[in-house]
Each structure stands twice: as structure tokens, then as C-alpha cells.
């Protein structure tokens, strides 16, 4: 029980750190890092949701009880989706740097207003 509560708490703190990083930081790399943190936090939340005290990995043969395998499948999918998102974001950052020679959001203001 403690492990589950602990990971839920950690996941929520990480989600908030990620969101805070995205909103408050003016560097595009920090934005992408924030996205990565948000993604990881949700993954931790889902995996912890499937944990059972004293459970074994969901690979047969299982001695005793198994943890819930369904969240593992989602998490795998979500990791890959998140990685594609991040890769695309980094590619955009590189392309944008070619034009502006900076990754500072305050100096990139072509589309304001």
C-alpha cells in the first residue's frame, strides 16, 4: 500500500513540476523537458495503478499473485507516443533555431498579436 501511495504522490508532484516548467520557463529546451516530465509522471501513475502488494511480473508461470498487466500495455504505448511527440518537438526546435539563431521564447515573437 505504501509503495502505491508513494508513487501516486511522486507522480502528481512530477506532473506539476512539468507543467510549471512549461509555463514559466522561456527556453524551448526547457519546454520540451517539461513535456517529458509530464509524460513520465502519467506513466508512473498508470503503472502504480496496476501494482499489487507482493505481486510478481505478469509473465507465466507466476508464483503467487500477478500484478495487473493491462496498465503495462498502456504504458508501453504511451512511452512510444510520448517519444514520437518529443522527437518531433526537438526537430521543430532545430528548424526554428535556423531562423532565429536562438531558443529563447522571448526573442521568438514572429507570430505575436
Amino acid at each position, binding site marked *: 500500500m505504501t509503495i502505491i501511495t508513494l508513487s501516486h504522490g511522486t507522480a502528481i508532484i512530477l506532473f506539476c513540476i512539468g507543467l510549471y516548467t512549461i509555463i514559466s520557463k522561456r527556453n524551448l529546451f526547457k519546454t520540451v523537458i517539461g513535456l517529458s516530465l509530464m509524460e513520465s509522471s502519467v506513466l508512473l501513475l498508470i503503472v502504480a495503478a496496476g501494482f499489487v502488494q507482493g505481486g510478481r511480473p505478469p509473465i507465466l508461470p507466476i508464483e503467487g499473485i500477478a500484478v495487473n498487466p493491462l496498465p503495462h500495455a498502456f504504458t508501453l504505448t504511451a512511452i512510444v*507516443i510520448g517519444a514520437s511527440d518529443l522527437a518531433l518537438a526537438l526537430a*521543430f526546435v532545430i*528548424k*526554428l533555431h535556423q531562423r532565429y539563431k536562438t531558443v529563447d521564447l522571448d526573442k521568438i515573437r514572429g507570430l505575436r498579436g
Partner: protein
Amino acid sequence: MISLLTVLIPLTWAFLIPLIHIFRKTWLKRAILLFGIAVFFVTISAAISGWKQSALSFLGGWPAELGIVLIVDKLSAAFLFLSAIGGGAAFLASYGRLKEGPWRYYVIFFLLQASMNGVLITGDIFNLYVFYEVFSLAAYLLVAFTISWQAIEAGLKYLVLGTIGAFFILLGIAYIFMATGSLNMAVLSLVLPHIPNEALTVIAASLLIGLFIKIGAFPVHFWLPDAHSSAQTAVSALLSGVVVKVSIYTLLRLSLLLFLETKPAVFTVITVVGTLSVLGGHLMALRQEDIKRLLAYSTVAQIGYVLIGVGTGMAAGISAAFFHAINHMFMKVGLFIAAGHIAEDMKTRNIYDLRGLYHHRRWFVIVFSLLTAAIVGIHPLGGFMSKWYLMLAATKAGNVIPALALAFGTVISAFYYMRVLSFFYSSGDPPPRQTYPYWNLAIAGACALCCVFLGIVPLVPSLWKLVSDIGLNAVDTAEYISTMLSK
């Protein structure tokens, strides 16, 4: 079975195009046209068959609780119809302009089409998230397709906000999973009333935040004008016409299935956000001088109209919302294609530089005026009818302020569209040169004719019954659940 093909066929085309490019480059041109037509017809036929009778397909032969089920009921069928028409128009516009040259564009286009259809027909909430992400990634890439700096910047903005929205949706799904242990939407609809209220609040809040970001509703709309105006013509039409509507479908489906009885506050929030979008979108559009940005802000406002309809949570409101969505699809596809062509032809997007357009682009301006009249809501056209029904539904549901905002927004929109038209009809300089864009003119003209036709729909009882059936079917969640769990 045909409902499954609406996803698989475009997906297969997207995987095939690189192979054709490698082995038989000369076939590419014909193959792409053929693929586009095939996708259109498959989607339409899936919509028709789903309309007649709810069509299910069980993937892998597993029953609904174990595997993934695809389901086409009347609401899905209506939106499939919308996606087929809008996607087809955008495909023709881009094919007429680009030919087969940038083949990667078509790969992304077919992926977008496949995932949109997937979002519309899936019956599993995690599967919905997966398709939603394919569809969002494809949309970011289509925005950035021209690789001009505006496009890249708009694409990055769209990507960052869209990804934040996606993670909020994923968080909501994680909470749903923690609370119930299952993901089938019909099952969830049955078990969600039994979970604690605080958890339900979190689920509703994170799903709504995520979906509002993805839709581009007022407080979090700032990616939308950039993305919709920086993309190339056909992509702008696709984004405004179809992509936004698919997000609205998701909101509609989830809010009706999960929160209709358990959390009515969700509908109040949707109504409030819709009202804010109407006012905010129109007031921002008033200040724009760039014609594509003006149209994009107008999209924000029109999203607000649809959200007011959804927010009533009643059959009449949902029917009106869909009717407005399909009207707006025709109007915006036509307007964006016409405006995009004018902007490319005249090499400017500033409306002050488009003075006197009527004297040398006569047909374009006539079509543009007709579409403008429809979007503002001149009496016999489609826009008027849908707004009228939205207003009726909103007042019937007791939302008087949104109904007033709707009327007020219409007045503002009349003002700024009149300003654009007054520039078009005033006298101006002679044109630099003239091109004969029959292709774009034909698509925009067809959209305008459809707007005229849609104005007739409410007057013919048999046609109006089709539209009102959508709302009745959407509210009837019991039928959806019993259909899905029948096997």
C-alpha cells in the same frame, strides 16, 4: 466490417505510398488520386451503413469487455460523413495545387484521414487516445509542411499545447482506469456513477482541459489562429473544416456517455466556454487585417456556437450543433480555399491591399460573398438556419445569456465581414496578372451551393428528420450501451 475499412484503407495507402515512390515512381500520380477517391467512397459507404443500423466490428474476435470494438451509430455516421466530404474537398484542393510532387504530404494526409475515422468510430477510450495522437501529430506536421518560418513556429506552438492537452487526457484516462479497471466506453458509462465524487471531478476536469486545448476554445485558443493561418490553403481548410469537428465529436461523445447523469456541471462548463469563445473569437477577428487570420479567429467563434449547442445536453441542441458544424465545414472550406487562392494570386494577405478585387476576380468575389452571407447568417442560407435552431435550443435549455451572446456575436461578425466585402467591391488598382484557377473556384463554388442547399434542409420535414435523429440518437446512451454489449 466496412467501418473497420475506413481506418485500414487510408492507413494501408499511407504505408504503400513510400513503396510506390521507391519502385514505380511514374505510378505515383494516378495512384494517389485513386487512393483519395477510394478513401472517400469507403468512408461514405461506412457512414451510410452505420446510419441504417449501428454497425459493430469486434477486433480479433474478442467481446467488447476484452478487446477493442469499433462502433458506428448515427452520431458517428454523421461525423464520418462530415469527415469524408471535408477531407475529400481538401484532398482535391491540394491535389489540384501540388499534384503528386511532395509525396510525404499525402502520406501524412492519409494518416490524418485514417486516424480521424478511427477517433470517430472507436468504442474504447484508450484506443481513442492513441488515434487522437496520430491525428494530432499529423495535424502538426501538415501545419509545418511548407517549412516557412511562420509554419514551423505555428507548428511548434500547436505541438506544445496539443501535447499538454494530450497528457491531460491521458491523466484523465489513468484516473478512469484506476477507478474502474476497464476502458470500454459502454462499460465505463455503466460503472462511472458508482465511483467517488472527488475522483469524478478530477476525471471530468482533466478530460475537459485536454479537449478544450485540442479544440481551441477561447481561453486556450492562441495556437489556433497561428496554425490555421500559417498552413497552406488546403490544410487550413482541412483544419478548420474537419479536424476541429473531430475534436468536438470527442468532447460530445465523452461528455454524453460519461457525465450526462453523473456530472451535469460539465455541460455548464461547456456552455460557459462556448459563450466566451463566441464573444472572444468575434472580438479578436474584428481587429485582424490579415484575411486568413480573420477567418481563423472566426473559426474560434464558430467553435463557440457549436459548444453552446453541445452544452445544452439535449437532443435539439446536439442536432443544432451538428447542423452548425456541417454548415461551418462547408463555409470554412469554401472561404479558406477562396481566400487562400486570392492571397496566393495577389501575393498579399492584407485586406487593405485587396481593394477592388471584384473588378478582376469577379467569380471568386461572388462565391466569397455568398459564403460570407452564409457564415454571417443571412436569412435563407444554411448559417441562419443553424444559428436559429441553436438559439431555440439554448433558450429552451434555459441558457439565455449564451443565446444573447450568439445574437450579439452574429452582429459583430456581420460587421467585420462587411468590412472585408466593402474592400473587395470598392474600386482599386488593376490586377498584376490573371490566372484561371478553375479547380479552386469549382470547389469553393460547390461549397457555396451546399450552403444554399443546407438552408433548405430544415424546411423539408424528411430531411430535417435526419438531422434531428442525430440528437435523439446521441442522447440515447442506453441504446449505445446495449448495442455495444450485445455480443
